[in-house]
């Protein structure tokens, strides 16, 4: 079975799989419109018709479909890699899945509207006033000139930075905890992680733990734990502390 010759009959495309790939790569077909699940089902059905398991074809197909899916995901969220990059892989995957589901629902809603338009296409009505109807005068109460000044001032105001607030609320940035732990360790040699994050939400605790790993990776801290699930003790790395204290001394003596 030759995967590239797989015949597809999708909403957005009809023809062999390799033509679809070509069109997508030439950007002549919007990948966002391609129903990848439909391709998978077509492949499985074809496989079933043949009645034997063609491992080589399965392998090739998996590689192609995985690539297609990745391209599609990236195309759907072009500017948000940075935003998603802030998240842990699992969280990012969850966020992507959530948005894909939302997009998919909207596409279905659009299909419902299209169908409705088709059904209601034979309803003609008048747009605008009747031919011989009176033209009403729309009177306006006296207005304050200050309203105009306020409107223009608002247009001249710096726009709020593109808000990622809803993401941040759920997933505070790792950076915040990195800074916080550094500040803590500038004041004392060690602290108890559990005591420090005890009052935070689970998500925040998870992100705080990521910050710990980050600091450990950079060799800024040492982690100790007496036993699994025992409180985690965080302390400054000795070498680093020494250098910092030297600098501090110099600074103070100057």
């Amino acid at each position, binding site marked *: 079975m030759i995967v590239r010759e797989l015949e597809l009959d999708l909403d957005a495309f009809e023809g062999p799989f390799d033509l679809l790939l070509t069109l997508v790569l030439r950007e002549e077909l919007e990948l966002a419109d391609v129903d990848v699940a439909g391709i998978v089902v077509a492949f499985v059905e074809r496989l079933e018709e043949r009645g034997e398991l063609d491992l080589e074809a399965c392998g090739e197909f998996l590689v192609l479909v995985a690539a297609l899916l990745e391209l599609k995901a990236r195309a759907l969220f072009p500017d948000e890699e940075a935003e998603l990059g802030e998240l842990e892989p699992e969280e990012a995957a969850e966020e992507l899945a959530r948005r894909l589901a939302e997009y998919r629902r909207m596409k279905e809603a*659009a299909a*419902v509207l299209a169908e*409705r338009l088709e059904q209601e296409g034979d309803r003609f*009505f008048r747009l605008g006033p009747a031919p011989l109807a009176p033209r009403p005068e729309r009177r306006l109460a006296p207005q304050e000139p200050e309203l105009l000044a306020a409107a223009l001032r608002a247009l001249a105001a710096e726009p709020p930075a593109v808000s990622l607030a809803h993401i941040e609320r759920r997933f505070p940035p790792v950076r915040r905890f990195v800074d916080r732990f550094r500040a803590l360790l500038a004041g004392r040699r060690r602290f108890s992680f559990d005591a420090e994050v005890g009052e935070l939400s689970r998500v925040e605790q998870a992100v705080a733990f990521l910050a710990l790993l980050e600091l450990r990776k950079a060799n800024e801290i040492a982690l100790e734990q007496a036993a699994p699930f025992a409180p985690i003790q965080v302390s400054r790395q000795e070498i680093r502390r020494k250098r910092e204290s030297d600098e501090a001394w110099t600074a103070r003596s100057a």
Partner: protein
Amino acid sequence: MDRPLRLISTNPLDRLARTLEALLVVAGQPLTPEDLAVAADDDLERVETALGLLSERYREGRSGIVLERVAGGYAFRAARDAALACERLFERPVQRGLSQAALETLSIVAYLGPCSRPDIARVRGVSADSAVAGLVERGLIGEAGREDGAGGAVRYRTTPLFERVFGLESLSELPRLDDLGDGADEIRDRLHAVADQRTA
């Protein structure tokens, strides 16, 4: 001999119905029973009764003028069997050639309520600027203030014309978002069907 007829024609409810006909034929958009009651200077209950009479008189198959319930009110339109004749005479600037992008944008605005171009782009994954501009021009969506009060991005919502074009009594007539499955079930079913065939 013509007594009974005369009686009917001076029946106050019939008079009210005539007044409502007049109001509906000059109105540029659907009128609610409340609008009609105020204009006719009559009470709501009687207006509702008269509307019932008119709905019967102006219905498909009986009259070329049809009274329909749409966009939260009542409006006259052409009977469906005159659609071909209407097409020969009238342009349809609103619904003609709505693109897939426009329909998706329209769904997002209809379902998510007032939202900005960045909101729409976030769901669609591509810029919504030209789709939004096209829908505003057709009068299917309109501005609804700005995000964060002043200064933010302009937000849009669907217009009564949207409901009219799509023949909706109100937005609540759209299928619930929860009922628009993500299609996963259907795909799973098809795959199961294949699997069952295999073991059979």
